[in-house]
């Protein structure tokens, strides 16, 4: 019981912290800056707690506490670490961001915390309705964060698009849950696992349909190919730190639950491999093709996010369900999150008031005036492109290697090809930053937070690359 409590501690900290922040803000007892500090403290504490708990290895299904609706494994532990880290750095860069864009409110931080709470639950949830609810907790907070800047019409448009399509998929998720409930008389994962193990996946049509709807919902959230269209606009519309948060933490959480659900049983996974195979290819190349045409950095990053989803799907296809550790997926997520968050942190203090600098052209000659920021951004871009010795390279290494090991040579080669294609737009930004003369001085009255965040993440890019995992 004690142990269980320790495992839940991060969730509790985050949840309680969120409520606390909300209340303090409601009564106006909290300045914006201190709110950000508090938020960072919450994430820091939770992170510490998670790190401590992550030392202990065994799988803990909360039979007694939550009737087995939650389950903690190493996978969820590390996923939680990543999410909390993302939250921490988002809060950190938001502080500098709101120095220039003055629409920040204290609730902002509490919403981030709520979202993180939902994500943590989502990673741990071992039952469909729990998953649904935590998904909604996460999503609703994110919706609000996306539309947080009430004065800007694009934010409103973004939230419209995201909310509408999100709710739409939510409906599918609910329906899927209903179908599975109908088929198996329960929505618990282990019931599904045992059912698939005994009769095979295709035995009960209701299960097939339900799983299909649910996987569709996940694919939507991670912006896999046919369901990706929203992501570019929403990232573009929402404010930079939020975009960073969405791009990293949300993707981590959803991929965690996605993997958990898919790896319940080899039969279940085996049934979806073919579709995921094609979807991942489409996602990689579709993402590249969207990215190449973009003039705005945020849109480019959104599109490259689609590409990385493609790689993660490769990993999903490649990892074997019977001895699933998810180390590859998590490593890739960590590497990707670090570099993405890094770029968004840098953008959050470079883009200036009202995000005036959003296009490639606006960053011409950055290296002349702000060499260190330019260097950091370059590092992040190289990591995304998978150039050694960065974390991104090792991530690709693990993904591709596991794909080859799983016999998916085609997928591996196509993955490499798509990373060649992705060089185009990453290099474009580097070239703009370095090889042109500066039009402006990139002045921005920013606090130390976001630059510090950038620095830490830049170091992390190399640090993570040195951390070995087992396939």
């Amino acid at each position, binding site marked *: 019981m004690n142990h269980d409590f320790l495992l839940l501690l991060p969730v509790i900290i985050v949840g309680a912290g969120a409520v606390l922040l909300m209340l303090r803000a409601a009564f106006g007892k909290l300045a914006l800056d201190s709110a950000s500090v508090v938020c960072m403290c919450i994430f820091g504490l939770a992170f510490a707690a998670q790190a401590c708990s992550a030392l202990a290895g065994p799988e803990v299904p909360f039979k007694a506490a939550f009737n087995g609706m939650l389950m903690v494994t190493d996978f969820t532990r590390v996923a939680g670490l990543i999410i909390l880290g993302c939250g921490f750095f988002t809060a950190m860069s938001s502080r500098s961001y709101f120095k220039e864009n003055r629409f920040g409110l204290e609730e902002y931080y509490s919403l981030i915390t709520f979202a993180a709470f939902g994500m943590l639950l989502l990673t741990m949830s071992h039952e469909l309705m729990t998953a649904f609810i935590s998904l909604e907790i996460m999503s609703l907070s994110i919706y609000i964060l996306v539309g947080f800047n009430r004065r800007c019409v694009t934010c409103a448009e973004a939230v419209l698009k995201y909310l509408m399509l999100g709710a739409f998929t939510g409906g599918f998720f609910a329906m899927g849950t209903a179908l599975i409930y109908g088929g198996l008389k329960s929505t618990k994962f282990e019931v599904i696992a045992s059912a698939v193990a005994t009769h095979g996946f295709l035995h009960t049509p209701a299960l097939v349909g339900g799983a299909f709807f649910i996987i569709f919902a996940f694919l939507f959230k991670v912006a896999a190919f046919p369901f990706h269209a929203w992501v570019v606009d929403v990232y573009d519309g929402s404010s930079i730190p939020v975009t960073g948060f969405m791009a990293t933490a949300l993707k981590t959480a959803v991929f965690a639950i996605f993997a958990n659900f898919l790896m319940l049983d080899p039969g279940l996974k085996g049934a979806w491999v073919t579709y995921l195979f094609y979807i991942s290819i489409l996602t990689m190349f579709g993402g590249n093709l969207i990215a190449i045409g973009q003039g705005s950095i945020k849109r480019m990053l959104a599109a490259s996010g689609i590409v990385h989803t493609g790689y993660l799907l490769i990993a999903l296809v490649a990892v074997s369900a019977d001895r699933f550790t998810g180390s590859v997926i998590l490593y890739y997520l960590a590497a990707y999150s670090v570099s993405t968050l890094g770029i968004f942190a840098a953008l959050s203090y470079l883009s200036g008031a009202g995000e005036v600098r959003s296009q490639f052209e606006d960053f011409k000659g950055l290296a002349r005036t702000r060499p260190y920021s330019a*260097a950091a951004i370059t590092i992040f871009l*190289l990591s995304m492109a*998978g*150039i*050694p*010795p960065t974390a991104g*390279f090792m991530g690709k*290494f693990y993904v*591709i*290697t596991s794909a*080859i*090991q799983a016999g998916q*040579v085609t997928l*591996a*080669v196509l993955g*490499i090809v798509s*990373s*060649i294609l992705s*060089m*185009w737009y990453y*290099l474009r930004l580097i*070239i703009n930053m*370095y*090889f042109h003369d500066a039009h402006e001085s990139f002045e921005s009255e920013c606090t130390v937070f976001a630059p510090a965040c950038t620095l830490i993440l830049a170091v992390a890019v190399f640090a993570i690359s040195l951390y*070995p*995992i*087992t*396939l």
Partner: protein
Amino acid sequence: MFEHIISSMIFLPIIAGLILLLTPVTKNGARAMALVVSVAVLILGLKLYTGFIGAGGMEFVENYVWFPSLGINYTLGVDGISLFILMAGTVLFPSIFLIFTTKSKGYYANLLIAQGAMAGAVCAGDLMLFYIFWEVMLLPIFFMIGLFGGEGKIAATLKITLYTIAGSLLMLAAIFYLGVAFHNQFGIWSFNIVNMAALKLHGTVAVLAFVGFMLAFAIKIPLFPFHTWLPDAYTEGPAAATFVLSAIMAKIGVYAVIRFVIPIFGAEFTRYALIMAYLGVIGMMYCGFAAIAQKDFKRMLAFSSASHMGIIALGLFCMNIQALTGSLFQIVAHATSTGALFLFAGILEERMQTRKIADLGGIAGRAPVFAMFFAIAMLASVGLPGTSGFIGEFLIILGAIKYNVAIGVLAGTSLIIGVCYMLWMFQRVFFEKSNERTEKFRDLSAAEVLAFLPILVLIIVMGIYPQPFIKKIEPAARIQINTILHNMQVADANALLQGTNLEK
């Protein structure tokens, strides 16, 4: 320090470069530091050279477990194949720092990083480690060309970077495949080059992996028809970048073919050697012909360099000891001669503010020392006996004749082709009447003379008394040749087997 002599040769420059990048140093301070570091590396290199036995195996081996889970080790070592490329870089770098002064600190930092990375790529004994250095050594060049290049620099940068990265990423896929194949065959993970040789590869996937490797190296060398990035990059890039590209990086492509492709893909190599050889010799003639049409001396030198690389590549694929030793020797010879030529071109460009041959003339009268040095380097590059250029070219042609008469004869034409454009250029730049532009050409300063002397001395010494160098190269070359011959015998045996099967 001396038990980790290679590591220190690799990381001393890299760390120095990073320090330069991250700390506010004046450009003169940067230059001084770069000079000191490169000289220190040179000293280490000389120590290594003197300590090198040359029995054919790896020496000065350093081996540390890095990623135990995947058998990726930090393995370094030097043998007769890598030694001279390593030394070429080590010897040539200080002279760059002596010569070029009027640039920002990033110039020196990038050069230092490139030097370290190239040393790493040459000494790496582990595929992953090699790949890491292989990619890292491109980055400084990317920034050098982009930051300090000419008008068309951005196009050139994009072209070279995308081209090379495309190649090397495909090689990466091949490397992963090798790793997995090794794991499947022996049950353990390893990317060690020596272990890889034990790998049994067959089927289309093996051929694809072979192509992946060859493509990366062919682009780097560059082998016809993958050379199209070269003229732009060499021409637009600053002199030092061009120097590094032509003198050392291209050679690392050649080196990599010997180091990786021959041992690992022996069967495929022997099967496709003829095609490669033809590509090499065609490239030699193609670029030689293209060179005569150039109005821009830097671009002309670029094509001439590509042309020579064609010959060097040819030497790899002739599969006999003379040709292989020849091209290994020629690697160093070409590094010295073409490297020097590009440095001279850089000086010309810097002082004359033009790259047009037509704008120049009569420099020999103005700057006899410069003219003489240039002439020596030029004669070496056209392979005049008594200079380093002759030995390698002669050996390669000799080997080519044995391998395939047609190729040999075509390779021989390099004697003529090279001389045509070189003399043409030399006449228009150094002879004839001087114009108001070249009137005020300043002859080499003492420092520059000092910087060039070692290169020129090397050119002459290697031409007159090459045996010591060859003695160090030959054993390693012989090992490679033996593996090739073994593969050929195996192939013949298989053919025979199939033949008998057909008879049945």
